[in-house]
């Protein structure tokens, strides 16, 4: 299983109510269900993936985070997870607000556009970055709103969102991440993992 999912799982307390937004084939949901909590739901946009999840007995509804989170009442989950999809939304700001309304806490992971390989791509080659984490070309990428770890820190402070815990992944190694080491982490890590609360 992806290292990212292990890290997310460690942030989630036992028997809590969890919503996985953009749950894909349900890999993380299944892991959480087996190890953490049976009270886990998923939201997924792809029909085929929803069918796969339901076939595995996971409770998933077909829908889009931008429109379909509104059906959940305030604070109906202890944790809402959004793994590497924030950048693909038309309105990430609204999605974050919805995550924090529906969940008491949210776990958001972000592919870091400040990663040195990405920067070099643009600086040296003069082309839009294509990396393992961001494999698409500029003309077919689903990523509309890329950001860096620093951008997300800044966003949270502007919007008065509390960052409870932040971690960075560098070649599948977990590193602590804070305002102090941000400059360096923002350069060396591929992924940021944030536990946030309004």
């Amino acid at each position, binding site marked *: 299983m992806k290292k990212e999912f292990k890290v997310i799982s460690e942030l989630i307390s036992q028997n809590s109510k969890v919503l996985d937004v953009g749950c894909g084939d349900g890999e993380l949901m299944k892991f959480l269900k087996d190890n953490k909590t049976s009270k886990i739901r998923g939201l997924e946009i792809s*029909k085929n993936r929803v*069918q796969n*999840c*339901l*076939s595995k007995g996971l*409770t998933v*509804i077909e829908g889009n985070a931008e429109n379909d989170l509104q059906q959940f009442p305030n604070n*109906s989950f202890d944790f809402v997870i959004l793994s590497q999809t924030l950048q693909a939304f038309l309105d990430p700001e609204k999605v974050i607000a919805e995550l924090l309304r529906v969940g008491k806490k949210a776990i958001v992971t972000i592919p870091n556009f400040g990663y040195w390989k990405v920067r070099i791509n643009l600086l040296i080659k003069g082309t839009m970055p294509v990396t393992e984490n961001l494999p698409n070309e500029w003309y077919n990428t689903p990523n509309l709103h890329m950001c860096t770890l620093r951008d997300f820190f800044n966003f949270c402070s502007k919007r008065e969102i509390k960052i409870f815990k932040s971690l960075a992944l560098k070649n599948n190694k977990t590193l602590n991440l804070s305002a102090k080491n941000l400059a360096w982490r923002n350069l060396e890590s591929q992924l940021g993992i944030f536990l946030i609360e309004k």
Partner: protein
Amino acid sequence: MNKLKQVKNIIITKPQKLDCGKEISNFPISYETYGTLNEKKDNAILVFHALTGDQFASGKNPITNKDGWWSYALGSGKAIDTEKFFVICANVIGGCMGSYGPSTIDEETGKPIGTNFPVITINDMVNAQYNLLEHFKIDKLFAVIGGSMGGMQVLQFVSNFPDKAHIAIPIACTSSHSAQNIAFNELGRQAILADTNWKNGLYEQNKTSPDKGLAVARMAAHITYLSKKGLQEKFGRKLQERDDLKFSFDADFQIESYLRYQGSVFVDRFDANSYLYITRAMDYFDLSKQFNGNLSAAFSNTTSKFFVISFTSDWLYPTAENREIVIALNAIGADVGFVEIESDKGHDSFLLDVPDFLDTLGNYLKTNYKTVNEKRI
């Protein structure tokens, strides 16, 4: 209709109060079962049929000699696997396959009850079928499943009996019949009422039969079960066994011939009065109204796990209406899964060979049956 004497039924002796205010008792519910009830009695599924269905969901229907209406989904090794599950399907009250309905013979007069039959509701149908649980001494069903009007019964069932089913699967349905739904049903009813052979519902006494009206009702309804794309692909403007237009009102087009055929075979197996009563029950269905406009309240005590399914090309009970059920359930934190299945077969998709639907349904039942059992151990 002598063959009907061979169908299985139970007589409900205890009185049932209907929504219209009348009370009925000593009435028959005819049913069929598939598979075997295990010793723990934890593998029972109650399947609800749609408007023109009956208890013969699978195998050969002994009355019509045609395949059961849900043969694609229900049977040995199928999505609702009768090797594993014990499936009960009953004819709704108001129906014409042995359950108490307008074609039931009134013992006093020796004639069919006809329009003296009370107007019934989906709630009445479900309450009548609940007696089957007592009959089979089943404490809790593993699942309740149904499409279209069957789905409405699923919703009503879990609302009435919140701890009697582990799983509830309403398919291609709605929690409240829309104006469009009512309009199409009214069209069908008016076709029957306009047939001079209907004779105020006393056609059997008059040795007539409103076949033309019932056939037109079926033809109109049948169009609503298909999608425009499906119809276009299957029939287009193809002509029926002729090279050119005949400049007459014959069935020049294949679609006309197809609809006429659908109408004509339908009248052989269905009762016109039943059609009136059952469509009325559907039109009266408004689950949220039963709970002062709050659909979530209909499910507030439920312990069931829900799986709502809709189809992309179903314009009779479109995805948006199915989604309203999901939204109402999420609002109260119920356990609900939902998927819209891609299909161009229209509302009828749930009855047809739609592999994505059948696979997902089958796997869902299989994995959840395992989980429900593990929990109990």
